């Protein structure tokens, strides 16, 4: 757990609709710059939980603190203007142009028109919506992916420190979804943001989360890092929830550091050394998935005794190129297999 004060803290949140409890006694903390993913099956209460954070839903019991202050201490509108909000259906104002949609919150906050225009142009450019083409368009003239990009730009326009996202990629086709998610992850804007995101997509959760809160029937099943949920599931529900995508998740959750002990000693056979022409070395924090992805792109050497694709690992931060370790598909997957067994993860 980070030691700094949490930016968002939920304490014992409970919400009933009629006799039915949709959220029961949920507590969590999100530190500055961290991403918390609310994960769970449909109807588990994750959206309700998210909407309590910006007071679109008021809890029956419990409090939400933002930067240590009860959210009820200020008008709901003011609170919301300090939090970006992105929803699955996007909800762009159909009678506003793209630029006007992006400018909604800065205008509410009374920013100068020139500053708003500059910010809008900057954001649209960064989200691959060239402003000269898109600024004057209306939402109905955009594709689903473009609309969601505008939705993101709108949430980011006033540069709020907190972003709430409710299945932001849920309505997109798989290809668009993957590409927008990648852009999203790489967006420098978001690096500094504290984010809470709702999803039911396990892969998405593992890709984006620092912490995952797994919910079922309004109750917390487990709160922890993706790796903790995968390697030390708190109960059967957690185990079953990840069972179907076990392998993919393991590839995302395990890092090179986890498998270093299982790698064959390179010096046993042929001594290979890293040269400048090779791909950038991977650090130990890279996931197995990322190592595989880089292997897939690596060129196969045409000469030499080992005609295999190869990437390099830097065993420590300060290691010299001479100490870099080579990885091939065979060595990587073998080590991954041993590591999984060692860590006691059950195979499906």
């Amino acid at each position, binding site marked *: 757990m980070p030691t700094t004060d949490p930016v968002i803290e939920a304490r014992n949140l409970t919400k009933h609709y009629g006799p039915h409890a949709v959220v029961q006694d949920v507590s969590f903390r999100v530190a500055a710059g961290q991403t918390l993913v609310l994960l769970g099956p449909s109807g588990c209460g994750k959206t309700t939980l998210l909407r309590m954070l910006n007071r679109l839903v008021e809890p029956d019991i419990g409090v939400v603190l933002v930067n240590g202050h009860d959210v009820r201490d200020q008008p709901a509108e003011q*609170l919301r203007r*300090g939090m970006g909000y992105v*929803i699955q259906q996007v*909800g762009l*104002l159909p*009678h506003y142009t793209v630029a006007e949609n992006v400018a*909604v*919150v800065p205008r*509410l906050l009374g920013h100068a028109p020139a500053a708003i225009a500059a910010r809008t142009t900057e954001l649209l450019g960064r989200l691959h919506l060239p402003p000269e083409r898109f600024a004057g368009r209306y939402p109905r003239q955009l594709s689903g992916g473009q609309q969601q990009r505008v939705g993101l730009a709108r949430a980011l326009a006033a540069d709020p420190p907190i972003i709430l996202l409710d299945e932001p990629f849920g309505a997109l086709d798989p290809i668009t979804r993957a590409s927008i998610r990648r852009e999203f992850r790489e967006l420098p804007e978001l690096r500094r943001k504290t984010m809470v995101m709702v999803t039911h997509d396990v892969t998405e959760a593992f890709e984006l989360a620092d912490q995952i809160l797994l919910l079922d029937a309004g109750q917390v099943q487990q709160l922890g890092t993706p790796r903790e949920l995968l390697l030390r599931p708190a109960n059967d529900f957690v185990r079953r929830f990840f069972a179907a995508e076990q392998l993919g998740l393991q590839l995302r959750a395990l890092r090179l550091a986890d498998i270093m002990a299982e790698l064959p000693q390179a010096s046993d056979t042929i001594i290979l050394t890293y040269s400048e022409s090779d791909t950038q070395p991977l650090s130990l924090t890279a996931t197995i998935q990322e190592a595989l992805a880089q292997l897939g792109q690596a060129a196969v050497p045409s000469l030499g005794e080992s005609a295999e694709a190869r990437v390099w690992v830097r065993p420590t931060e300060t290691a010299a190129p001479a100490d870099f370790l080579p990885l091939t598909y065979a060595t990587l997957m073998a080590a991954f297999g041993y590591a999984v067994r060692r860590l006691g993860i059950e195979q499906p």
Partner: protein
Amino acid sequence: MTILSELLTFWQAQADKIGQQTLQHIGLTAASLVAGVAVGVPLGLLLTRRPRLAPWVLGGAGVLQTIPSIALLGFLIPVLGIGPGPAILALFLYSLLPIVRNTLAGVRGVDAAVVDAARGLGLTDWQVLRRVELPLALPVLLAGIRTAAVINVGVATLAAYIAAGGLGEFIFGGIALNNPAMILAGAIPAAVLALLFDAALAGVQRLSGRRLAWAGRALLVGLPLLAGLYLLPRAASKLLAGFSPEFVGRSDGLPGLRRTYGLHPASVVLAPALVYEAARTGDVDLIDGYSTDGRIKAYDLRVLRDDRHAFPPYQAVPVVRRQTLDEHPELVPALARLAGQLSDSVMTELNYRVDLKHETPRAVALDFLRRRGLWHEPLPATGATIRLGSKIFGEQYILAELYAALIRGYTHLGVEAKTGLGGTSICADALRTGAIDLYPEYTGTGLLVVLQPSPAVLDSLGPDPAAVLGYVRREYRRRYQLEWLEPLGFNNTYALLMRRQQAERLGIRTVSELSAYLR
């Protein structure tokens, strides 16, 4: 083709009047729409925030909508009297349902995700309403206003019945006089107005985005201006007259007064049933009526003497089939017992008891006969049955009861009453074909409605009651083998009436004096 040319002639002759009525009509419609929008839109928006009230409010507005417009006006008269007030209120009530319902439907139709996103971004409830819900609901809302506008242009024709003017004046005049050209003269501009309102609002509806918002604002400014049109043509005059549509159109009505006396009072048109009431309450000062109407006595009105005989005589006379008289000669003396017995004031008194005291015509008739010593126990009916007709108003019912009692008392004939026949031509046809044997008719009506002589003949007859009676008697006998017997004594003619108090204060007893006063 003749109707078309009549119509064009009519329009040419009445161009000012049509123009004024059109402006009034637009004014009435616009004023009620302004009120409808001013109340309906906020009410609809309130319902979006208090959905539990929606079924009640919409149900209430729906019930209002189902009240027939003429009945709604009727309900409002006791509260608001006559004139533009109740007319605009009634139109306003009719416009409520479409406006409230469409406001609600429009706002409800706004994509929930858009509203959710807007709230999540930090728009206040008011901002969500003004910047998101209202603009997005505008096309549906405008459709409601458009519906209301078209309904109101139509219903506004009824305003003519309560002295609020508009294009209904000619329509009702035309209906009363069975004059299709006159009906069309009002109906065509009303239809064109409805189409124009519809097209204009449809055009506004088709606009999109910003232009739509501007058009909405323009409408908010423009409608009250249009409503202001209503105030323009109100003329100032010493006295305000309220006339029934038939009187305004009939040649022996207002046009006749104009010819004879040069009388041009500022006037409004209203339903015949409301004329007396309007005079009583002081909404108008001068009305048309019938000289034997019971309300003259009840409301303390004065009949202005027709000193230059603009109105032809309308003596009441029993009209009988020749064949019936030949077969049953004993009818003649029985019917003759009533001849000359009923003066204007006596008939007015009897009408008063029926129309205002709500006594039955039979009770009033029998009481009258007893007091005059004309009553006789019915004789056993051994002979044929005489079928008695009457038109559909109190005086005729009383006369029919009088004759029925006389026939039963002084002959052995049976009596079958066929009272309440719709109008003059129905009675006349029934008599000619033998569906009835006799009914009371008025000489002037027989002359103008049934015989319809040339103007030259009319001029030659002049205002002399005996000459008119002689002419209708001769012509009825020649054409239809029908007999006009002896007059009952009273003359139920058109009359100009004023409140007695006002007439006395102004020293007006005759139409000539009225004309002089107005000049």
